[in-house]
């Protein structure tokens, strides 16, 4: 889509960065947002159908693939799919063993889910930016942003899940009193500095999920914007930039999935440790 003038280029970029939003509009009631303004006016009580749909689809794909490999898992010589699944499995198992110091049967499956799910969602980005918006436009759907990790709701949602687990395990392992003591008496173990410690620790605690979610979102969103900008070039110039950027993004995609997973394990490991 080589745009000649400024207006269509801006429109094109905005269109590609707009989620398919369903929510309660002050005037139209429960409906699909027809524009970015309408989506904004819906406020909190709206949901991004494309983000949810694609992320659930990718989650299902993960569950299906690994469940299939698990069901046919034999102790004999493994086949192709099973080899790939086992490679990922062992990678995660080793990562958890090296990073997580403690005993918790939830952490390893959690890390596996996070890693593969995020990897699959990120991989959607390799699909050329025009394919799905164009296809859904023909089907009568105005917006379709297929990469869930370019939506801060998705990344912060997962980070929120990890955050809940951090709080849960902090209280479970150390007790509510122990957790409160950790928040108020570190790093300075003196009663007069409790307010200062509290501010420091609470900020540190809250920054964890926010940085986790925003890091993934930022990387994916920036990459997506670059892809859209490249797609605005004349058609003969697109591949010159698009191909190297896509190849580079194979690295970014897996790296970001890995970072999200590793940091989640590290945070959860810290939640299990007594200070």
């Amino acid at each position: 889509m080589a745009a000649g003038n400024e207006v269509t280029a801006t429109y094109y970029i905005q269109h590609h960065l707009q989620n398919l939003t369903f929510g309660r509009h002050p005037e139209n009631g429960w409906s699909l947002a027809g524009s970015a303004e309408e989506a904004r006016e819906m406020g909190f009580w709206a949901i991004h159908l494309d983000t949810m749909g694609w992320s659930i689809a990718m989650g299902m794909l993960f569950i299906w693939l690994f469940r299939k490999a698990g069901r046919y898992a034999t102790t004999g010589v493994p086949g192709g799919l099973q080899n790939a699944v086992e490679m990922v499995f062992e990678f995660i198992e080793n990562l958890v063993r090296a990073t997580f110091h403690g005993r918790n049967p939830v952490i390893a499956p959690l890390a596996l889910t996070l890693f593969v799910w995020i990897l699959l969602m990120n991989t959607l980005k390799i699909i050329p930016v025009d394919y799905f918006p164009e296809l859904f436009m023909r089907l009568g759907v105005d917006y379709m942003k297929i990469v869930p990790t370019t939506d801060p709701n998705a990344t912060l949602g997962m980070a929120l899940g990890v955050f809940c687990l951090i709080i849960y395990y902090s209280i479970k392992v150390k007790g509510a009193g122990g957790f409160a003591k950790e928040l108020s008496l570190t790093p300075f173990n003196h009663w007069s500095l409790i307010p200062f410690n509290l501010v420091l620790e609470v900020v540190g605690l809250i920054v964890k999920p926010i940085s986790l979610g925003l890091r993934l979102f930022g990387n994916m969103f920036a990459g997506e914007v670059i892809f859209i900008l490249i797609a605005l070039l004349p058609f003969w110039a697109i591949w010159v930039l698009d191909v190297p950027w896509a190849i580079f993004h194979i690295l970014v995609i897996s790296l970001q999935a890995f970072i999200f997973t590793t940091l989640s394990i590290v945070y959860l490991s810290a939640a299990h440790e007594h200070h």
Partner: protein
Amino acid sequence: MNINMTLIGQTIAFAIFVWFCIKYVWPPISNALHERQKRIADGLDAASRASRDLEVAQEKAEATLRESKQQASEILEQAHKRSSQMVEEAREQARAEGERIVAQARAEIDQEVNRAKDELRAQVSRLAVTGAERVLEASIDEKAHRKLLDKLAAEL
């Protein structure tokens, strides 16, 4: 890019997927992997045990071979000794037999010689008597001259 319900939806989806993974995905893969690891370890163990067994068996075989070789050489030596002894015995026997035969032959010869001598003597005495008869043209009284003739025969 508004923060909205998607955030909560995504958290719920995340929780469901993690739960599903814990419940249905992780255990079978984990079990299969660990079982396979155990089997491989067992296999390697068995292999090393077998090679150790082989070594022992080889050693045993070598020892048996060495022993049997020694036995064989002992038997051979004994046989050699026995055979030389037998040869010696046979030789001794043969020598004794030979000597006996020689002695017998000699005795026979002596006997024969003596008999021949006696016969000769008898013949000579008869010849002498006959000769004397011719010379004297008379008969000589054998009884009268018997003494003389015996003396002659003894001198022969």
